[in-house]
């Protein structure tokens, strides 16, 4: 007879990436699927709900569980196999995008879908069904997941593929960790013919111009993303700088082979080769706190003209994709209140009208986002999808430490959500922090929500898996 291992959860402050939401929780970091199963059993015995957490990169409350238990899967991070012939990786859920691309790029493959930071985990990326700058072309992260093993709260291990368990496969991907813990994932990557991409910058004078460029280029470009200066008003509302990147063909980049060295892909650690970027956030903090974000945005917009003149240029995949990793701990610039992100997904036909209304309304309310990022999307087959045939605008708001100001920001986001939902828009739970329970069925449709709740009742009837997000939405 063996003794039942004593599971010791640690009391920690568990927050979203934006630091604005979260709270104390009991945390465990398992390293094997057996330990996850034991943790589920232990949670059940304690009568406490468990939240699954990957790298903690969700901005809001998708991986927090105030007063409850949190299974942090970041130590389950072995990349079990990478096939250099097919580019298929087998990994544990805590393997990060960085771990994956460092392995794959050395073999001439790049992950099909990556986020703006390489810190996110495979489990988190699948559970939130993340997207990248090529969503309009290759779809969401779930579309490059070939299979996964799902450990349900009752301890069953279900191997899921599109064919073997289509309902569970399409509900667990994008199912924000409500149905079980993915303990092993098979991820497809794509062949690249150089360690670099050809990048062009295009200045867009307003929101309509931005949308027009997205429409003009989406048939041929591999990646499209626009940075927006949301301080622009009137004729310049929604002005920004579009970046287009394209894969190179075999033989096109004479120096492309040696850039497959992962070390040459990494984002440079120093500014101008000398200033460690880890020291930059205090300067950015000062810009936020003396109200000079508008000036910083304007300077960046003006610098875009020079960049546009000097493009196209060749850039490594890592340097193009992982803009959020250029300045480590950049989110600290919003301390002490933190930040939230509001990212509406709007159908194409309503794009210009709704995005213009959202930007104008936030400016009028005195909550101007310090960062805006515009992307083009396409629908995907997942049950809790956020994708639409249209656009998304990610807006980063610094949260005030003052309660009245914080409350007014939450109210603003809820009012903006009304505009978006009325136009048939959607939201994305890796970012959301403010959506109301009444909005949940309107995001996905009553039918999809009923189907998701049926899956939840089937695989987790005791509702062991909960997060602050799932309680807020009344899942």
């Amino acid at each position, binding site marked *: 007879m063996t003794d039942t291992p004593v599971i010791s959860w640690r009391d920690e402050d568990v927050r979203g990436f934006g630091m604005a939401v979260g709270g104390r929780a009991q945390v465990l970091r398992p390293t094997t699927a057996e330990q996850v199963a034991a943790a589920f059993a232990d949670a059940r015995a304690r009568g406490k709900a468990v939240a699954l957490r990957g790298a903690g990169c969700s901005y809001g409350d998708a991986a927090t569980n105030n007063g409850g238990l949190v299974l942090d899967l970041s130590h389950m991070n072995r990349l079990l196999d990478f*096939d*250099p*012939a097919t580019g298929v990786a087998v990994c544990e859920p805590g393997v990060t995008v960085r771990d994956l691309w460092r392995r794959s790029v*050395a*073999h*001439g493959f790049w992950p099909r879908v990556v986020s703006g930071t390489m810190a996110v985990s495979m489990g988190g990326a699948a559970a939130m069904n993340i997207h990248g700058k090529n969503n309009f072309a290759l779809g969401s992260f779930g579309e490059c997941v070939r299979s996964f093993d799902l450990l349900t709260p009752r301890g069953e291990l279900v191997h899921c593929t599109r064919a073997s368990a289509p309902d569970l496969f399409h509900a667990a991907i994008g199912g924000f960790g409500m149905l079980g813990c993915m303990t092993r994932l098979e991820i497809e990557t794509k*062949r690249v*013919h*150089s360690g670099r991409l050809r990048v062009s910058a295009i200045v867009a004078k307003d929101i309509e111009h931005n949308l027009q460029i997205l429409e003009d280029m989406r048939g041929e470009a591999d990646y499209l993303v626009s940075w927006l200066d949301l301080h622009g008003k009137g004729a310049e509302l929604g002005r920004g700088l579009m970046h287009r990147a394209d894969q190179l*063909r*075999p*033989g*096109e*980049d*004479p*120096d*492309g*082979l*040696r850039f*497959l*060295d*992962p*070390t*040459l892909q990494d984002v440079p650690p120093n500014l101008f080769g000398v200033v460690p970027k880890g020291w930059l956030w205090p300067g950015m903090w000062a810009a936020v706190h003396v109200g000079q974000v508008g000036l910083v945005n304007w300077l960046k917009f003006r610098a875009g003209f020079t960049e546009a003149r000097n493009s196209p240029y060749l850039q490594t995949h890592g340097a193009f994709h992982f803009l959020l990793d250029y300045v480590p701990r950049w989110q600290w610039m919003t301390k002490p209140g933190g930040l939230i992100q509001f990212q509406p997904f709007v159908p194409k036909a309503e794009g210009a009208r709704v995005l213009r209304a959202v930007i104008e309304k936030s400016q009028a309310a005195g909550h101007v986002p310090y960062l805006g990022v515009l992307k083009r999307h396409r629908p995907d087959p997942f049950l809790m999808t956020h994708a639409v045939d249209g656009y998304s605008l990610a807006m980063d708001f610094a949260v005030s430490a003052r309660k009245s100001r914080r409350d007014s920001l939450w109210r603003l986001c809820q009012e903006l959500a009304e505009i978006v939902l009325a136009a048939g828009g959607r939201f994305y739970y890796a970012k959301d922090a403010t959506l109301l329970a009444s909005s949940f069925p309107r995001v996905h449709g009553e039918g999809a929500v009923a189907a998701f709740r049926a899956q939840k009742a089937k695989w987790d009837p005791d509702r062991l898996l909960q997060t602050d997000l799932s309680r807020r939405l009344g899942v």
Partner: protein
Amino acid sequence: MGPNAGTCVVVGASSGIGLAVARRLAQSGRKVAMLARRERELMGQVATTNDVLGLQAAWGYVHDVADFAAVEPLFARIEQELGPVDEVHFVAGVMPDVAIDEFDLGKDRQQVEVNMLGCIAWGNAAARRFRERKRGCFVGVSSVAGDRGRVGRPVYNASKAGMDCYLEALRNRLWRHGVQVTTIRPGFVETPMTAGLRLKGAIPADKAAALILRARDRRKAVAYVPGKWWLIMTVIKLIPSFLFRRLSI
């Protein structure tokens, strides 16, 4: 055939410094025979190299350097298939984890066979041909680890020291016949072999490859990669034994 125009052989070409050297050679327009033990990795890298360049510059040959009898026939086969070889890079190496109180002959033997005897087998096979043709270049990637015997990895040190001494002797034998032998002693380089070690100030494998090919072009006898390791190892070599044995480096 001018200098540096024939076929190159890179032994240990599926990852790390060997792969980076093979890539730079292929990129510079050379025909490269890439040799390694792990077939899946090697053939993947050969396919990737040719794909990125948009032409065939690399050919893969699965080979275990500890299979000494296979070296001669493989050398002949490569020359038959790709034309005369005038440049060989021996970059194969193993460095198993060894505990501070571990004395495991199995691990020791593997290091001597791969790092030292493997180099000797390929050096001999190249020397016979290059000496006769009065041209050719043999580059052996040794290590700064061969400069002193240290507490951490005694046989890694010994195997690299043996390889290094062999390369010097080979150089002295062959220079009078117009054949170049260059010894490379890399310091910290980011490769799969050193992935778990968190080496501070490690250079990318591609940078190491660039410095190795520069040492080749300058017909160096011995080159530390990067150059600062010459200074570091000169100081370390000067530490008297009675002091060195008390240190943990």
